[in-house]
């Protein structure tokens, strides 16, 4: 069990996206289940954010902050569904 979940990424993701992504729903490339980004299991500690699907443990998202760049790897999500403002 990881100690933290996707909610803890809200700040890091908030510096990339102009809106909050933790309410977005991803579809897992591994098991096909859809879930809120906030529900992802978070690993990686100081190396970066490794967010795993709570259903199948596959990696959905990786976020690494280098000195002057941020790497965001989303290959574990086949789709993101983002609620628009006002919804």
């Amino acid at each position, binding site marked *: 069990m990881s100690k933290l979940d996707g909610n803890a990424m809200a700040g890091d993701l908030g510096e990339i996206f102009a809106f909050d992504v933790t309410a977005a729903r991803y579809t897992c490339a591994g098991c096909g289940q859809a879930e809120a980004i906030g529900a992802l299991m978070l*690993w*990686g500690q100081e*190396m970066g954010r490794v967010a*795993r699907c709570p259903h199948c443990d596959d990696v959905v998202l990786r*976020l690494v902050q*280098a000195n002057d*760049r941020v*790497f965001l*790897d989303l290959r574990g999500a086949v789709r993101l569904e983002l609620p628009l403002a006002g919804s």
Partner: protein
Amino acid sequence: MGIISRGFGGRRRESVPGLPPGQYLTHDFPVLSAGPTPRIPLDRWSFTVTAETGERKSWNWQEFTALPHEDVTVDIHCVTKWSKLGTTWRSVSIDTLLEDVETAADYTMVHSFGGYTTNVPLEDLLDGKAWIAYKFDGEDLEPEHGGPARMLIPHLYFWKSAKWVNGLEMMAEDEPGFWEAAGYHMYGDPWLEQRYQGD
């Protein structure tokens, strides 16, 4: 940039001369992991070398621990800036494991139980530069630190010393492993501060 927090020290660390650039000396042993700790019973453990031809050589736990081993003392450097000096490991040299392996490959991918991978050029594993370690500080290697056995490649950043190791695959071309694909450096020399892609 930013403000200094009056009276904040953080975890015990020292900046000492002789460390690679940007590193601090730590006195504990931080645990970082990209996922849940695999629990591998020794009777399920194996290590397999796979040549680019597909040819394989495997050891189970009995065979592996019967191989010639050495107790090595090395310094380790984590890309998250902590360094630990004089760590001792009981290990089997990669030279021993690759003795009878025919390969023309220049690169390797290290594989772990749980799916972690990391890429290392073959020559960085040879000539006494790398081991598979199964005891730390005289004790069996704990699962959270990579037990039953982990890679030990002290001349590269410690993410290359893959925990829960179960295989080594020869590759003709260099390909990124788990952290490399996520933005970390393909090679990872701490003395050149090669932390991220493009460094």
